[in-house]
């Protein structure tokens, strides 16, 4: 359908200076409000006139949402902290380089300067049927245009599709799950802490949302515990072009090795489902095993068990299998798939 581009609809712009004020505004406007972080996702929706909020609440003026603090061996990152600041931060680079690698592979330098961690993890899906303005399930309709016999669905889900086959496009999301992060959410009823693993929700639970944020809530910070600090990290993102593109599949892993054996592991793949997919079965499998080709091979095969492909995305199965294998082998490995 025809989309009018570049001319944003009329809305009231609010630029609160505190979290409390922002929440009051969101509580007042409810579903009629759009939260603006870096604006890189939101502006598309507005310019395409596909979302016509009555109010836009810009979080850019709230200082308490920005910055990185060290906390008991871990980190607390304000949701409005730009991705480029995270990439440059010395503690992130030293202890949690998985997040640095993931953030560094987001889009382009300009976008990383403007884009925020909170925005990156809370962004909407990139399914072009949905973003094209068609009334699909996710947009409140009764059909998934990406999951029909004639759909173009090369980038869509191979796991956990439930009517909608859209995927989560975030690069930092799998890294945060692998780092066992927690999401700090504030709303009118106060603060709640949600494990990163539970922050995203699939279409089976709520087909119109990507995460647990209610319309009157905002993500204020991301807390990374010291649990996986200094572990052996691996992040790889496969995309059609090497800059300014979303992942076809990405993988994030944090592995602790003692002697020759893996003693602790968290492994997460994204862009294969509507939520980052933590590979608990793979983690269980590799504990106690050596980080070698045999383990990598077993892990790769196990990781893709249960995958259901669409017409054009069968390639994601071997891609994911190989990314998991490469994550097990680690960054220093010399052998290839």
């Amino acid at each position: 359908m025809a989309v009018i581009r570049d001319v944003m609809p009329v809305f009231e712009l609010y630029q609160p200076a505190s979290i409390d004020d922002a929440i009051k505004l969101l509580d007042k406007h409810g579903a009629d409000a759009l939260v603006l972080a870096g604006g890189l996702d939101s502006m598309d929706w507005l310019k395409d006139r596909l979302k016509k909020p009555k109010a836009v609440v810009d979080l850019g003026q709230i200082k308490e949402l920005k910055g990185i603090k060290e906390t008991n061996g871990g980190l607390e990152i304000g949701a409005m902290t730009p991705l480029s600041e995270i990439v440059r931060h010395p503690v992130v680079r030293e202890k949690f380089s998985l997040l640095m690698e993931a953030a560094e592979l987001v889009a382009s330098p300009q976008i990383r300067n403007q884009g925020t961690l909170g925005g990156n993890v809370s962004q909407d899906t990139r399914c072009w049927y949905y973003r094209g303005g068609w009334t699909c399930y996710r947009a409140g309709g009764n059909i998934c245009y990406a999951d029909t016999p004639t759909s173009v669905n090369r980038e869509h889900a191979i796991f956990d599709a439930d009517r909608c086959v859209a995927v989560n496009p975030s690069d930092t999301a799998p890294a945060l799950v692998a780092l066992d992060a927690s999401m700090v959410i504030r709303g009118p009823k106060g603060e709640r802490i949600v494990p990163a693993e539970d922050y995203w929700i699939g279409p089976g639970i709520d087909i119109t949302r990507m995460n647990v944020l209610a319309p009157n809530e905002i993500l204020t910070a991301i807390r990374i515990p010291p649990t996986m600090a200094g572990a052996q990290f691996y992040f790889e993102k496969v995309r059609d072009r090497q800059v300014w593109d979303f992942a076809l599949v990405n993988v994030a892993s944090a592995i602790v090795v003692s002697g020759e054996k893996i003693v602790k592991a968290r492994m997460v793949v994204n862009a294969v489902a509507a939520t980052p997919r933590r590979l608990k079965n793979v983690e269980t499998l590799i504990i106690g095993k050596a980080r070698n080709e045999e383990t990598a091979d077993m892990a790769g095969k196990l990781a893709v068990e249960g995958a259901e492909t669409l017409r054009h995305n069968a390639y994601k199965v071997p891609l994911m299998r190989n990314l998991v294998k490469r994550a097990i082998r680690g960054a220093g490995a010399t052998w290839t798939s």
Partner: protein
Amino acid sequence: MDLLRWGRSPWGEWVLTHVSWSLFWASLFAGVLFFIAHAGYMLFSAHRKRPSAETDALEALYKNLPEKIERHGLAARLFHWVMAAAMFVLLFTAFLPIAGVKFAWVYWHWMAGLVLTASILFHIVHATFFMDFWSIWVGPKDIPELKNELMREFGVDVPGPKDGKYPLGNRLYHTAIVLAGLGASITGILMIPRIRTGLVTRNPYYLADATWGITYVTHGLAGVGLVGLVIAHVYFAIRPEKWWVTKAMIFGFITKRQYLEHHEPSRWPVGGKSTSTKPAGQA
């Protein structure tokens, strides 16, 4: 309030998508309102109750009736409870997410839908070939009885026969639940190829967008209608003066006194070699 939701098809046409979920709240409200209104009426009204002397006389007259009279056979009871369980699963899985309780509901919904459909098919066959098919239906001939029943409910002592096997209210309810249940079931079966069940090849395009809109709207209207109907049904099932009916749906029988108190033997004859609904002494 918009009662229907519309969307744009890929060809730019406005098509129906589903009913407004406000209708769910309206149906819930209507069901609860009915429950409060009826309960209040029953508490404070002088609605007619048959004198016990009348039943005593009938008991003396119908001495040869057995003490226990079968009201629902085992197959009918099994159908009822399987259908009830499926209906509750369907309503909870459909409407709890709308009410804000989020969970993966689709799998349970379509599974329960298949159970409901199978139980309906069983009931149609069972009722057609093994039960008194017409005893549950209503027609123009019931209009005088409807009028009498309403008058009795308002405390007027209107003469006339008692109920057959199924009271008029019961039969009217059955008609409503047939319409809503079949509406939800048939449209639900049509939707099966839209979701991943593993039973059929997915194909959301076998009906046109506009036809899908009508299908979804019918499903939604039937669903919200069932919310009110089920509330009313549960309400009557738990009312103290109706427990004998509810117990009959569990144990299958009613007592001779209940039979004579609430039913007209000529309209619901209890047959069999050793029993007779004719007064004692008559051939």
